[in-house]
């Protein structure tokens, strides 16, 4: 993972931000014990969730369910796994993260802000006129966003393109991509799945945010995607199944994915849509609706 210039030092600073020491090349939880790291990442995921709820409350519209379900994965990527430089967002050697399910923008924005790409105060501009935090991620507006997304089904292809570029240039960066389980109903996902296997893109690690819900209800009822693991295996992928709301399992799966050569890896991450906010959990109504002020309060209490 490259050179490490600085050890991580956890210095809680204000209500929801965890400060970190990051004077150079990268950010890594090097001197932590695994247990300590997991604890830290759990805390980060919670902080991200708090941001999500607050942002959406402030915005008055947006997608809480699919943002919350992915918070643990995104926390692990941005606070442990990815080799990135918030102060040099276009650093060519950086690892990439593509949020294919672009409607979960809040989880990405929260992670970027917490990681130091911009000030957390800017999170309150979500979805507002002239904000860099567009309703769906816009790479032209916000540094740290690797790809503009929002139209579902396109991010895996884009990730493949990035990974091909790495192969051509013999670069070591890895590409992570988060896909929704409703999203895999898009045929382009399977075009990209086939191509990633064909081109042996072992530098691609995909996560399926396997929360069982899409807008119109359960994926099972709307358009059944089962048996989902079999599909990815049949498309030539290394498949790992985990609980995607379990930080340790996410960490381990990513490590395992790195060891596989000649194949891309799909981490099927069973998650709970709305995870962390009791009244949102597993409720399709919270796919694309913002919480009201009282609801925000209630959620934040639960996320303490």
């Amino acid at each position, binding site marked *: 993972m490259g050179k490490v210039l600085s050890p991580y030092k956890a210095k809680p600073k204000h209500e929801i931000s965890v400060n970190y020491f990051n004077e150079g090349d990268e950010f890594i939880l090097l001197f932590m014990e695994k247990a300590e790291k997991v604890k830290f990442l759990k805390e980060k995921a919670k902080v991200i969730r708090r941001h999500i709820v607050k942002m959406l409350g402030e915005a008055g519209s947006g997608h809480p369910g699919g943002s919350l379900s992915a918070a643990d994965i995104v926390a692990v990527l941005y606070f442990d796994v990815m080799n990135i430089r918030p102060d040099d967002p276009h650093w060519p050697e950086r690892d990439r993260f593509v949020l294919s399910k672009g409607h979960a923008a809040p989880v990405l924005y929260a992670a970027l802000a917490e990681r130091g790409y911009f000030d957390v105060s800017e999170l309150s501009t979500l979805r507002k006129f002239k904000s860099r935090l567009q309703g769906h991620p816009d790479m032209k507006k916000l540094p740290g966003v690797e790809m503009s997304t929002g139209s579902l089904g396109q991010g895996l292809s884009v990730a493949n393109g990035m990974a091909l570029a790495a192969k051509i240039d013999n670069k070591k960066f890895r590409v992570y991509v988060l896909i929704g389980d409703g999203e895999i109903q*898009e*045929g382009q996902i399977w075009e990209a799945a086939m191509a990633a296997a064909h081109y042996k893109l072992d530098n691609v690690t995909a996560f399926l945010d396997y929360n069982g819900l899409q807008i119109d209800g359960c994926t099972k009822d709307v358009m059944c995607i089962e048996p989902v693991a079999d599909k990815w295996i049949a498309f030539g992928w290394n498949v790992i199944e985990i609980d995607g709301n379990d930080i340790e399992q996410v960490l381990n799966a990513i490590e395992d994915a790195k060891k596989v050569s000649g194949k891309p890896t799909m981490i099927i991450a069973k998650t709970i849509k709305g995870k962390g906010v009791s009244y949102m959990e597993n409720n399709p109504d919270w796919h694309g609706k913002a919480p009201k002020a009282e609801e925000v309060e209630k959620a934040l209490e639960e996320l303490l």
Partner: protein
Amino acid sequence: MDKKIATREAYGKVLVEIGETNKDVVVLDADLSKSTKTYEFSCKFPERFFNMGVAEANMIATAAGLATAGKVPFCSTFAVFATGRAFDQIRNSVAYPKLNVKIAATHAGVTVGEDGGSHQSIEDIALIRALPGFTVFVPADAIETREAIKAALEINGPVYIRLGKLAVPVIHDSDFKFVPGKALELRDGSDVAIIATGLMVSLALEAADILLKDNIKATVLDVHTIKPLDVETIVSVAIKTGAVVTAEEHNVIGGLGSAVAEALCEHNPVPLKRIGIQDVFGESGKPVELLKHFGLTAEDIVNAVYEVLKKKSKNM
């Protein structure tokens, strides 16, 4: 004009009505039935409703298959995906074989609001208008939507209906007569013609009111059918007024403005100013903020009128 209803709401209602009377009507959606308002149909006629999941291309071509067997499918999703994500399917499996498929796309234009540019279709009219044999309806209000959907059902061939998310003023009486392909003259005036479509029609009426204070009499045309275009009426008001402003919630490239420019140039060239999105992508914001930002207000229409009037006087 007090009451405001989104055209997608009107669509949802009339869909249930025609579903009742015409058993061949089937509805397909791509995981957005609550937003596109096909949900009510899906509850009433579950055996004739097919949720295709997030798979717009498959939705359109499946509809084509249903149409070959005598069904009258209405397909709905957001306009940006309905047209762009399934364009080749619309082209080769619907338009080319002239199949009886209706595409009722909601969330057109920048009034989608906060979701931002990726979700704001500004090019759907351009796309569908370029396809031979398609009828393109862009209703201005809830009542026109009702009529457009019923008219679509009568047409044996592909129809695109462009609908909005935002609640917009009801400008028509319920007994108003909708004739497909015939532009509606809502105001008669000899100084300038404002030719509008969709939610810009009510703003065109506002603009006409403002202009009247300055003693400028504007003809206002409501072009609910972009294709086939009512060239005759458009040319006649151009002849009458000698100056035209078009207004649409769409890129000025490829939509109503282009269609009118084509008609004028071929039949009676007069100065034209096109109000619309000036060839940029949309962004997040409140619908009213965005209408203002993109120059889609009554004031923008008024200013455009003054511009064309200046050119007209020079021409004379």
